[in-house]
């Protein structure tokens, strides 16, 4: 099988081209020695089946950024039959350098001048035949977004593939990668002879919009308003969809699964229904949120607004060691941590991404909000409850700040903050939909197994040994609650609440349900009993612990998948557990000392 790599600078539409060529057949693959995910797809090219690999965007083959090292490593360790260099036609005067560098490696290559529609509108004309002669590789103009001339590009690529390739060894490429070339001079001479650019360049419409959206006074308010609207849209539209999925799952359970399992022993039907089936249900509940999140995120990203958001809030974020794009993801984390973690992939510096991923689980997501709404309604008056909720949001923000500041030297960003602001563009519906679909597929492939196992494990802890009342003191969960009583008593959490925390490890949505099982009561009766058994100091301490200790199993699994490291997931778990305990301890003990 032939192997083809797509390579280009960021913002050249490389991934759009990859999606156009691969349709929805793309998958995430592992490559020797490379720690980031690379998308690849098998495509038919002329008479060949070829594997197309989308390499991360890079500026210079000799650069030192994480992505640039990945690309270098990939080029010297994988035998490639063709390298397709994708360039933005409107910026060919500076992007041609990559083509010259690749040619120097001796790899079979071709240059694709993408966004030819935009270049034409800007009055740029490129003589691609002359450029092809000068460069010594085929050059094709296309528009990946609208699919113009993509078939021609494929035909040209097939032509290169059918030529006999001279064997090139990795040593040679490695040697060439170290060479300093006089790229600059050659690029200038080629551009002079083959490209005509109007003297006055600049996208008028983009400048006019920027005047408004990046306004010194209006920019930030507009940003926060836009984030608020998008946030409300994702989670308000997501809620009925999640409820719908939950309704369907329950319907299937009561009408098909339960009658089917009626004659099986209780432990088996419990394991299958409350363990396996609920585990799958937990996974399914994330699907609508992830799709909606990435539909919106693709629009924000591809329109060019995300880089502008970075511009607006960078001053605030730089002190925390984060950047503006990370801030957008943290904000989104207040809806749901899982897609927010996945969204950090836009940040290309590995360390900054890790730091952002470490703080996202501390944002008070909508699932935790449900627990707090119930608890505040139980323990506080209607006039106190909103203040308590507000205080919890403040605590959430404070833990984010503290964590970022404490860990920013551990995850020190080593890349300069320098970003291109692309002109405003409207992504096509196809681009938006493909992205949503790919992300859900990725989540299901990577996360569903571990989440289901985790739910089964919690089921086992709360239901075994056999023959006991679920979540009672004699179950494993109850015993664990007892073991931890020495640690949990100083923060006012008794063994019954400790069992609820074990449930809460799976998902915060089930904490209230777990309390109902633990106390054997529901609704108003449960609220009444809890109000009798707990005073507000204990309740507040429980809420603080719930806020910080760990978001949910799905978040942890996503964290592990995105960081590609169990160690990192464990650091996150242990840090949030320790922080939760310290915060609850300080609160509980000082409240008691003050006589509450």
């Amino acid at each position, binding site marked *: 099988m032939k192997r083809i790599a797509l390579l280009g*600078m960021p913002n050249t539409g490389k991934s759009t081209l990859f999606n156009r060529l691969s349709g929805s057949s793309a998958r995430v693959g592992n490559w020797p020695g490379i720690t980031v995910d690379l998308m690849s797809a098998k495509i038919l090219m002329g008479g060949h089946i070829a594997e197309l690999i989308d390499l991360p965007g890079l*500026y*210079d083959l*000799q*650069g*030192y*950024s994480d992505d640039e090292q990945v690309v270098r490593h990939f080029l010297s360790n994988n035998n490639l039959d063709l390298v397709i260099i994708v360039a933005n036609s*409107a*910026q060919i*005067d*500076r*992007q041609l*350098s990559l083509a010259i560098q690749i040619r120097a490696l001796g790899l079979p290559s071709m240059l694709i001048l993408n966004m030819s529609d935009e270049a034409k509108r*800007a009055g740029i004309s490129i003589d691609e035949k002359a450029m092809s002669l000068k460069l010594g590789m085929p050059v094709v103009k296309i528009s990946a977004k609208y699919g113009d001339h993509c078939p021609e590009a494929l035909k040209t690529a097939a032509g290169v593939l059918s030529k006999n390739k001279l064997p090139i060894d990795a040593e040679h490429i490695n040697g060439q990668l170290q060479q300093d070339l006089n790229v*600059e001079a050659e690029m200038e001479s080629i551009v002079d002879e083959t490209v005509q*650019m109007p003297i006055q*360049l*600049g996208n008028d419409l*983009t400048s006019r919009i*920027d005047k408004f959206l*990046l306004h*010194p*006074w209006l*920019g*930030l308010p507009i940003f926060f308003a836009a984030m608020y609207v998008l946030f409300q849209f994702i989670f308000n539209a997501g809620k009925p969809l999640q409820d719908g999925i939950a309704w369907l799952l329950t319907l299937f359970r009561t009408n098909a699964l339960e009658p089917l399992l009626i004659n099986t022993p209780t432990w088996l039907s419990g394991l299958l229904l409350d363990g396996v089936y609920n585990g799958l249900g937990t996974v399914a509940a994330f699907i609508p949120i992830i799709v909606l999140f990435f539909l919106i995120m693709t629009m924000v990203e591809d329109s060019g607004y995300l*880089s502008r958001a*970075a*511009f*607006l*809030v*960078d*001053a*605030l974020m*730089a002190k925390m060691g984060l950047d503006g794009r990370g801030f957008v993801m943290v904000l989104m984390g207040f809806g749901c941590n899982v897609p927010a973690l996945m969204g950090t992939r836009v940040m290309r510096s590995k360390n900054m991404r890790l730091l952002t991923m470490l703080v996202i689980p501390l944002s008070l997501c909508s699932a935790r909000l449900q627990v707090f709404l119930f608890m505040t309604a139980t323990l506080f008056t209607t006039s106190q409850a909103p203040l308590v909720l507000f205080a919890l949001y403040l605590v959430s923000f404070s833990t984010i700040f503290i964590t970022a500041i404490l860990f920013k030297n551990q995850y020190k960003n080593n890349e*300069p*903050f*320098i*970003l*291109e*602001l*692309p*002109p405003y563009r409207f992504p096509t519906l196809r681009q938006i939909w493909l992205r949503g679909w790919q992300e859900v597929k990725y989540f299901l492939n990577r996360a569903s197994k571990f989440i289901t196992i985790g739910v089964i494990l919690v089921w086992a802890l709360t239901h075994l040994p056999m023959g006991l009342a679920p979540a009672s003191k004699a179950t494993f969960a109850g015993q664990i609650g007892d073991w931890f009583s020495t640690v949990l008593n100083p923060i006012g959490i008794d063994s019954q609440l400790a069992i609820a925390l074990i449930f809460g490890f799976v998902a915060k949505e089930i904490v209230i349900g777990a309390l109902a099982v633990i106390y054997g009561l529901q609704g108003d009766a449960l609220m009444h009993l809890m109000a009798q058994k707990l005073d507000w100091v204990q309740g507040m301490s429980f809420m603080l612990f719930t806020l910080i200790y760990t978001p949910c199993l799905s978040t942890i699994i996503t964290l592990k998948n995105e960081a590609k490291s169990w160690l990192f997931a464990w650091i996150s778990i242990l840090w949030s557990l320790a922080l939760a305990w310290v915060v609850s301890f300080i609160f509980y003990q000082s409240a008691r000392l003050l006589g509450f």
Partner: protein
Amino acid sequence: MNPFLSQTLNNLKPGEAAVISSIDADKSFFLRLAALGFRIGKQIELVRCASFNGPLHVRIGSTDIILRRSEAKRIQVRSL
């Protein structure tokens, strides 16, 4: 702006244009700047600055770029 003095990029005023006269950067940062179009002799315009001492928005040719002040300090410019 005094035509005989060179100054750093972060000292330009919004709307002011100048020519890049020197870049003080290690190799990796230099390569990144070059790839984004920062080259000696190129005209550069400061479009705007973000509030609270935030990043700068500059334009070189057809490319708009944002960079932090600490990075802009390493780029010397002279008047047109």
